[in-house]
């Protein structure tokens, strides 16, 4: 058995796909099946080669329950590898990728799919937040204060400005930079370029973050085709391998009673350290990074935690253009969660897709020249857990 390779991918453009009640829009299984057929066509494998299905669990708003087993039937796809839906808040898509990779590593499948669909935009934000505030805090000792998911990141931002003297403007340049990247990405939800003045003029969502510095509501469907490296090599075409993987859960849900440095993102530090050690690489070896970063400040903090930029300098690096396409280390080449969009349960699969597309040199106008090594992350909570993948082009 060889390493785990990625040999195909497809996704819908991120946006508002979920039909409202009474509308005749396409439903989750239809959209996802189209994506699967396109990804498998790209991979040039036979349907009968596929031996495992690893789904990001759909949102509770998806009417079809037991969605994974329903899809196995809809696609008429018998499997000896595991077929399951996985769930881990924002990390869900990343865990689906790992579940598929395990089907390859264990030998249960030569080819396995990591896939999912996230439909949620027909549900109002006020109603959705009644659920999400319970996901990101203690239902009895935190949710009763109305602490929303991005309120935690806003508190990271306040602490970051306090400790490092970073300005709100410097952090906001991340949104401008990522919108530029998104303008070059056909899968992105928001593609019209924006200026720093426009970012600063948006209504406040969670102080000091405004509308363009927090994630939009998004739907999406995505499929990655994973394979044993033997299968990838036999194709005779370039492919991407997983060169390093790291995971750490700090045993905390947002915060614990024991005070720590909340904005050091120690789970990302540890998971990143594991991934770089396994890969035998260091942060300066990366050609680009595609972090899971729901808000501008999160991109800054996770880039620092991974050692991609110096501690306290992440916002300044963005303001100086060093993390833009064409800069020292392009970050969020897809447009990131604020502009590419954030269909939360499948967001990590979109991030991995971006990394694979860059490494296959198929990223069009936003191609990082000669990209050979890239990094993607997934997280949950307030980066209480992090999953880090280092991917490499093989040609």
């Amino acid at each position, binding site marked *: 058995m060889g390493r785990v390779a990625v040999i195909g991918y497809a996704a819908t453009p991120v946006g508002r796909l979920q039909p409202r009640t009474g509308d005749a829009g396409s439903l989750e299984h239809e959209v996802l099946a189209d994506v699967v057929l396109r990804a498998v066509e790209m991979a040039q494998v036979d349907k009968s080669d596929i031996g495992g299905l690893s789904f990001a669990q759909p949102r509770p708003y998806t009417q079809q329950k037991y969605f994974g087993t329903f899809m196995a039937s809809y696609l008429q796809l018998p499997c000896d590898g595991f077929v399951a839906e996985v769930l881990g808040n924002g990390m869900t898509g990343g865990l689906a990728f790992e579940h598929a990779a395990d089907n390859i590593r264990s030998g249960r499948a030569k080819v396995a799919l990591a896939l999912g669909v996230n439909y949620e935009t027909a549900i109002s934000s006020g109603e959705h*937040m009644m659920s999400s505030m319970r996901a990101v805090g203690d239902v009895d000792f935190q949710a009763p204060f109305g602490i929303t998911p991005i309120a935690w990141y806003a508190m*990271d931002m306040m602490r970051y400005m306090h400790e490092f003297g970073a300005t709100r403007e410097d952090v906001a340049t991340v949104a401008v930079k990522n919108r530029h990247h998104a303008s070059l990405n056909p899968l992105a939800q928001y593609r019209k370029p924006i200026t720093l003045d426009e970012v600063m003029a948006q209504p406040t969502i969670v102080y000091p973050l405004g509308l363009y510095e927090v994630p939009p509501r998004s739907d999406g469907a995505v499929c990655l085709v994973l394979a044993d490296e033997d299968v990838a090599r036999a194709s005779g075409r370039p492919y991407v391998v997983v060169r390093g993987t790291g995971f750490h859960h700090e045993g905390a849900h947002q915060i614990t009673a024991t005070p720590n440095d909340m904005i050091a993102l120690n789970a990302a530090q540890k998971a990143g350290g594991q991934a770089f050690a396994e890969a035998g690489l260091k942060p300066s070896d990366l050609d680009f990074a595609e972090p899971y970063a729901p808000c501008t400040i999160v991109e800054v903090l996770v880039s620092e935690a991974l050692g991609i930029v110096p501690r306290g300098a992440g916002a300044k690096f963005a303001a100086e253009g060093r993390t833009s396409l064409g800069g020292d280390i392009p970050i969020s080449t897809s447009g990131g969660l604020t502009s590419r969009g954030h269909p939360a349960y499948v967001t990590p699969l979109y991030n991995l897709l971006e990394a694979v597309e860059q490494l296959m040199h198929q990223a069009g106008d936003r191609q990082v020249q000669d990209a050979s090594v890239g990094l993607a992350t997934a997280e949950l909570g307030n980066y209480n857990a992090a999953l880090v993948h280092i991917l490499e082009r093989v040609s």
Partner: protein
Amino acid sequence: MINTVQLNHPHPYPPRKTPFTTPFWEALAEGRFISTRLGADGAITFPPRDFDPATWSRDIEWVELSGRGTLYSVTSVHAAPEAFREFTPYQVAIVDLDDGPRLATAFLGPVDTPLDSPIEIVAMRYTDEVAFAARPLVD
């Protein structure tokens, strides 16, 4: 003892109470902020728990906290869950108590309150429930 703030409306999203946590809420209604600690002088945890999370020892005791501490971070929520919409913008904070634990709670102060400045925990008496919050400490 901590101070109590009176409100003239019901709690927008009341917590559930269990046989174990009921003493916490009953003490709060009397103006006392209590939690649990390992043994007679060990680390204090919050929320209260019927075992010590660091050691998994069940040897825990209730202890009254001073309710004094410092502001670690704060934000104001302008886009809120439905139950909280009528109160926007409202402030929430993370505070570090002098007694040890860090907690997240409502904040009854401006969002530009300097971080690391002193705060106090207060009881919030709604028309139907009791909760707690932090506010800037005024000597």
